[in-house]
């Protein structure tokens, strides 16, 4: 990529990030109501579409058209679902949009070659966690539209913060793409020792016999071997964490505020 091309891409990306921020700001609930809200939503959607198109236009060309189209679709589903999750007024719709975003993420993971994780995300998130969310919403559903769902906290500042974050990340990722000379200004220790320019990010050699290429056909078997071989202790710890979370949530939910009020002071204060 030439210097001109990079700068052209960079300015396009900057415009895209700006449009995305404006779009999110317009879409976020700001308690306007009526025609004003509707028109700002429409304008926000339009801007969002522009931003997404720009992102797509500046995206990298993948190997095959099929892979490219698949990735484009799933990533669009993930991003649009995510935006819809955070801008929808109703928390129920938010949860449903989140499920859609999860589906997109699962697709992205599949395209990236993480079949097990894609499926696990669907199962764990959409199947378990999201259902739990919906149950909570049922338990804690206020009558009608809650006022706090119609307004946001500092929507402009939040959108700006998100845009800055996105811009920074895009910048860094763009530098990764541009090559080792521009990706990192700080010379690493290895570079200094070698006296030359070493690629700062080099693929690590496989360190375990059970490891290997994640794209291999026996993907899940290899992942299982990796997990229960090299990371066995972490798995046990995670299991313990789940147990603690289970006990903790039961302990917490079993004490409603009314009960707590009726408890004697000594017991409340004691361990």
């Amino acid at each position, binding site marked *: 990529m030439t210097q001109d091309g990079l700068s052209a891409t960079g300015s396009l990306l900057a415009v895209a990030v700006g449009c995305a921020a404006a779009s999110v700001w317009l879409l976020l609930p700001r308690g306007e109501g009526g025609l004003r809200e509707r028109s700002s939503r429409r304008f926000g959607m339009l801007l969002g579409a522009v931003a997404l198109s720009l992102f797509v236009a500046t995206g990298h060309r993948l190997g095959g058209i099929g892979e490219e189209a698949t990735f484009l679709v799933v990533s669009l589903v993930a991003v649009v679902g995510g935006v819809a999750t955070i801008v929808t007024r109703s928390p129920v719709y938010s949860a449903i949009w989140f499920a859609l975003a999860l589906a997109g993420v699962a697709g992205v993971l599949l395209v990236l070659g993480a079949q097990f994780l894609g499926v696990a995300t669907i199962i764990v998130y959409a199947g378990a966690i999201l259902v739990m969310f919906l149950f909570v919403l049922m338990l804690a559903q206020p009558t009608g539209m809650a006022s706090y769902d119609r307004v946001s*906290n*500092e929507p402009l500042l*939040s959108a700006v*913060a998100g845009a*800055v*974050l996105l811009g920074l990340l895009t910048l860094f990722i763009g530098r990764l793409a541009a090559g080792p*000379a*521009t990706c990192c*200004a700080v010379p690493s220790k290895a570079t200094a020792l070698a006296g030359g320019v070493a690629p700062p990010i080099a693929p690590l050699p496989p360190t375990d016999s059970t490891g290997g290429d994640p794209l291999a056909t026996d993907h899940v078997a290899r992942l299982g071997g990796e997990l229960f071989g090299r990371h066995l202790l972490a798995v046990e710890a995670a299991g313990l964490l789940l147990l603690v979370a289970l006990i903790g949530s039961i302990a917490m939910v079993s004490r409603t505020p009314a009960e707590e009020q009726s408890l004697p002071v000594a017991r409340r204060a004691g361990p």
Partner: protein
Amino acid sequence: MFSLDPATLLVLVPALPLAGAILTVALGRLLGSKAHWPAVVSIAAAAAVAVTLLIGLGREVLGMVHDDHGSASAAPVESITTLWQWASVPDAYVPPADSPGIDLSAKAAGRPESLPFSIGIDLRLDPLTAVMLAVITCVGLLVAIYSIGYMHDDPGYPRFFALVAAFVFSMSMLVAASNFLLVYVFWEAVGACSYLLIGFWFRKPTAAAAAKKAFLVNRVGDFGLAVAVFLLWMTYGTLNFHDSLTSPVPGILGAERLADASGYVAGAVGTAICLLLLLAACGKSAQLPLHVWLPDAMEGPTPASALIHAATMVTAGVYLVARCAPLYVACPEALTVVSIVGATTAFVAALIGTVQNDLKRVLAYSTISQLGFMFASLGTGTLLGFTAAIFHLVTHAFFKALLFLGAGSVMHSMGGVIDMRRFGGLRSVMPITAATFLVGSLALAGVAPFAGFFSKDEILASLHARGWPDAHAEHHGSATHDSQAHLDLDASAGKPLWLVSDSRGGAVREAISDTAAAGTYRTLYWMSLFTAFLTAFYTFRAVFMTFTGPVRVPDEAGHHAHESPPVMTWPLVILAVAATVSGWLLFSTHALSNFLAATPSLACPAVAATATPHAFHIDLAIQGTLAAAMGIVLAALGYLGRRSDGPLMDRFLGPLETLFAHRFYVDEVYTALIVRPLEILAMLAAAFDRYVIDGLVSAVAGIPLAAGAAIRRLQSGLVQRYAVFGAIGTLAIVLALAWTLRP
């Protein structure tokens, strides 16, 4: 002659009351109702020592006088006891080349390059000190004994006796001190004791205000004394009275300078010193511009009034002027001022005294008036005048203490009521008090055999001698004394000039030039005579209102109005005896005047040259007695046997009564001229402090406050808002890093 060394005895006089005061303070609560013992015993011992000293010194001096066949000019007697060196600064002061006082007096020693500042705790013993010590301790003892009864059951009983003992200590030190700095220190100390005793019942607002007033008015006088001390140091290069080995300059009242005819600075500096000393004396002795505190001081306990505000402390001014007699004699203008102040004060205070209804206030104005007499006498600048003033001081101490204690006895019996219109006919209720009070009144009025007659006669004689010098010169013309005074009119000089040609033995010529000065003294003489008449009048007005007429007792006294206990009446009787016989004894033998003449200050040639032979001026005595008799008769006409609340004075005096009753509006004038402007100044200062200074401080404090107010709005309690700021902050840091590390 002395069983003990006189120096040791002299130290004992102030030391014993000091020990008594400390003991009372330390053991007061332990002793409870016996708290008077340390004070009474120590003052009694001090009195015994003081009387021993007086008798010893008196024998010595008078024996010497008799050896000289009755010469009035005894050799000066003094002995100095230096306890320790208080301060010593070498090369403290380089006198200017034309410094007259030092230059003149330091002829013998050669002009000093620089003078050390050395102050010792020096006590002196000379006739004047001995007399003062005896008076202070004796009156103090009687008052302390009287207070045992008077202050009985007072919650501040130990405090009172501690203060009385402390006062006796301070006053003894004041009259025994032998340098001006010590005089100043104990001048303040007696002022502090006076303040504490006036405000003894400090929960009473009037007492607290009176104490404050006394203290503040005394500050004016103390300022005069302080400046006078500075001037004395700058002029003479020493503050010692006596000649001291530690100072190359002879003492201000030391033998060397006294013998030197030109030892004292005249002119502006000398007059300034004298007038500043007079200001100090006016403050302490309640003379005219500064007399306002003494009547209010009657808010204190009556024994304290008797001791401090009648008998002893208020005479400190008289003592100071008498002590500094040579300084004054060198400045005739200052002397005239002293006389004018004294006589005017005597006159004005007597006028005010005629309309007072408060028994203690009558006595307070009478005290001011009598002190005025003393000052008038001092202002004559003659030996007769000085000795007469001290003579009157002694007799006055006795009879005024007697009158005050008598008034206290009446007050004690009347349940604290002191307004003469509310009681009367107490003669039958309290006979001892009545009799002793009558004796004191006769002495105060100046009736023939009593003490006041003789001392007042001497004062009038001293004034008369200055007013009609020719007559006196003729009168004593035939007398053949070495130090006879002649008058010479020096019309060409036009200014009064005391020419002292020779120190001793030769003819002393004094030139009192001015006929104007003589005229002044004539006026003062007539004024004093009229004051004597007024004195007799108001004294007997008080006597008649209190003790004659139908018996009337105020409700506060209850049904048990009775004579005071013996512990209170015995001091009265003793003082009555003293008031009766002291005058005649001291006058007939001339013991006091001869004795005092041996005081170095009064034995110096300039003063001794004015000595006149002792004489009983029958014409003056008749005038004085007539004035007193007229006053008594007038009082009898108005008040004898009448009810004591009759509206007599205002009918008689008309509008003048209002003027007198308001004390010539002096307090009001002071309020308008000094108090109000100062209050306004204070208000302005307070406003400045509150609004400008505090405003600045508040403004400075407002900066962090405003900053805090601006920043505290960020603490909204909303976690989400914090998260927004946190995210933005973090991103800003990352942005900055990315910018810094850009390729």
